[in-house]
């Protein structure tokens, strides 16, 4: 973990130098892990497809062609068509976009909320800490997926409600993590020195505590994004996922389960791409964990 000296202009310069070399060391550790590098390449491609996908898709995601329904792959439909005559290739390109939007916005919202509340609980202690941790315990006591289901039933199956549901159930993990890290440092010499120099609690949190927990938080976020990808697809498995005609990996995989015996191409691409993507995200997260926090983890 990087060391951040307490104060002073020269020390500040030194801090930047330390941080740069720490980043470089982390990067060289990351590169040494071939799976993490391969995963990163795929994740990068996935993001790229998510950004340009809607422009390069040959058909619209709601564009049907009943005459070509359940058609095997052809030049016009490189991944075949589904039972409504949607072009699977375009469906997948749009799915990548929507899946990424949901996962990233939900993870970032949960991350921000969890970080702020966790920092607050850890620094404030007392009643705030007790109350917040009770709420966190509540979220950990039962599988969050069920609360997601209830929230989606209540607020609808659009992008917004799904992001909201994932964020509401996702922040507790980040809050618990950062609170634990802050508690470990709160009474340490660094915070004492900062206080002695007149640093306000907010300044202490932002300037001294956050930089020391940021690598752990990044690792948690890297594990959180594939988690949100999985849960949003899993909502589709019980029929509560993103509302059609918006395409999603969950809908495609769940639909393929019903009729792959006749039309296997409906399964190959969505399930294959989805599985490879989750695996890549996990390799990246694991690589980050080893690179940023070589002492922790397995």
């Amino acid at each position: 973990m990087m060391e951040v000296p307490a104060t002073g202009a020269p020390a500040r310069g030194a801090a930047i130098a330390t941080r740069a070399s720490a980043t470089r060391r982390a990067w060289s550790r990351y590169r040494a892990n071939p799976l993490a590098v391969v995963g990163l390449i795929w994740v990068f491609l996935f993001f790229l497809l998510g950004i340009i996908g809607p422009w390069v898709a040959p058909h619209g995601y709601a564009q049907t062609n009943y005459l070509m329904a359940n058609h095997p792959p052809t030049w016009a439909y490189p991944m075949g068509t589904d039972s409504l005559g949607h072009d699977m290739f375009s469906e997948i390109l749009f799915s990548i976009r929507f899946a990424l939007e949901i996962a990233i916005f939900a993870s970032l919202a949960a991350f921000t909320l969890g970080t702020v509340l966790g920092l607050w609980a850890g620094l404030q202690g007392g009643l705030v800490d007790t109350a917040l941790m009770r709420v966190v315990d509540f979220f950990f006591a039962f599988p969050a997926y069920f609360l997601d289901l209830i929230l989606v039933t209540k607020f609808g199956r659009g992008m917004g409600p799904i992001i909201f549901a994932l964020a509401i159930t996702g922040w507790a993990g980040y809050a618990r993590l950062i609170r634990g890290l802050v508690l470990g440092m709160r009474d340490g010499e660094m915070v004492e020195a900062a206080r002695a120099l007149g640093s306000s609690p907010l300044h202490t949190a932002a300037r001294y505590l956050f930089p020391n927990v940021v690598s752990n938080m990044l690792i948690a976020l890297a594990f959180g994004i594939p988690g949100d990808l999985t849960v949003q697809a899993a909502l589709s498995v019980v029929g509560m996922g993103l509302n059609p005609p918006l395409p999603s990996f969950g809908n495609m995989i769940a639909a393929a389960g019903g009729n792959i015996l006749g039309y296997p191409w409906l399964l190959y691409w969505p399930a294959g791409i989805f599985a490879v993507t989750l695996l890549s995200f996990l390799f990246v997260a694991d690589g980050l964990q080893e690179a940023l926090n070589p002492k922790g983890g397995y």
Partner: protein
Amino acid sequence: MGLLRYLLKRLVSILGTISAVLALSYVLMHYAPGSFFSSANLASAMGTLKMENAHLYASYLRMFRDRYGLNLPLWRQVLEYVWHSLSFNFGNSFQNPSVPIMVQLRTAFPISAGLAFGSIVLALIIGFPLGVVAALHRNTWLDSVLTTLSMAGQAIPSFVLAVILVFVFGVWIPGVVPVNGWGTPANAVLPIVCLATGNVGVVTRYMRGSLIEALRQDYIRTAEAKGVPYRAVVWRHAMRNSLTALVTVIGPSFAFTVVGTVWVENIFSIPGLGTLLSGAFVNDDIPLAITSVFLLCLMVMGMNLLVDLSYALMNPRIRLE
């Protein structure tokens, strides 16, 4: 603190959490557009009954009004709902108003519980030796293959695996195991394999990590120094601590598995709690939906309690708090 007091404290906290889940669900559903307990929603959940038999429909409507105390203030409704659920008096479902929910659960619950427990046992049976092998061959090609495979097992959700297995055993090599339905022991094979795969990864990684950690301890060096054969050092000294720690993994794994049964049941068309739950959510059958969630959560919390208790019993150094 005594075991009994700890048990009591945990039971109270479980009751509190589950009541909060029930109350929250009820309030959310109450404030849904038009309220789920309104005549319009009841009518849509009960399908065509309104047209077919207006008299029967009206009597069901009265039954639900009385049941949920819809003319009472909201806080009374919530209290009554929570109390009814906690005393396992679930009432009737919207879709199938003539049959109490309890009757529907009686066949569904054992199926889901059996799948969940079966897959945990299978995961332990497979994951434990794999983890030991990985730890004893650490930093070799065998270790990296096992570690990578177990990561892959954790990353691929059981519903994706389930769809792939349906394809493999339905199209490529049909006739080996059934890919659909319920009734014979063979029907349980694929769902249990799907559910176990993720946990095999968890158990393997955990076992590997904790055994490597245990082998680094001073008492292991002492045992080796005094001439205990390596095999005995591993099995008698290092393994004992790893095994106790393995119990703690089962709690989170079980929660994960219970959610997995919901997915897998839907894909393999198994008439368990998960299929009941998805049908209820899709058809706005709120009483059945919340009840299935309630039972699945109860299953998870009960298992967590068991895990904590057995951990405390196995390892007297851990003080219950």
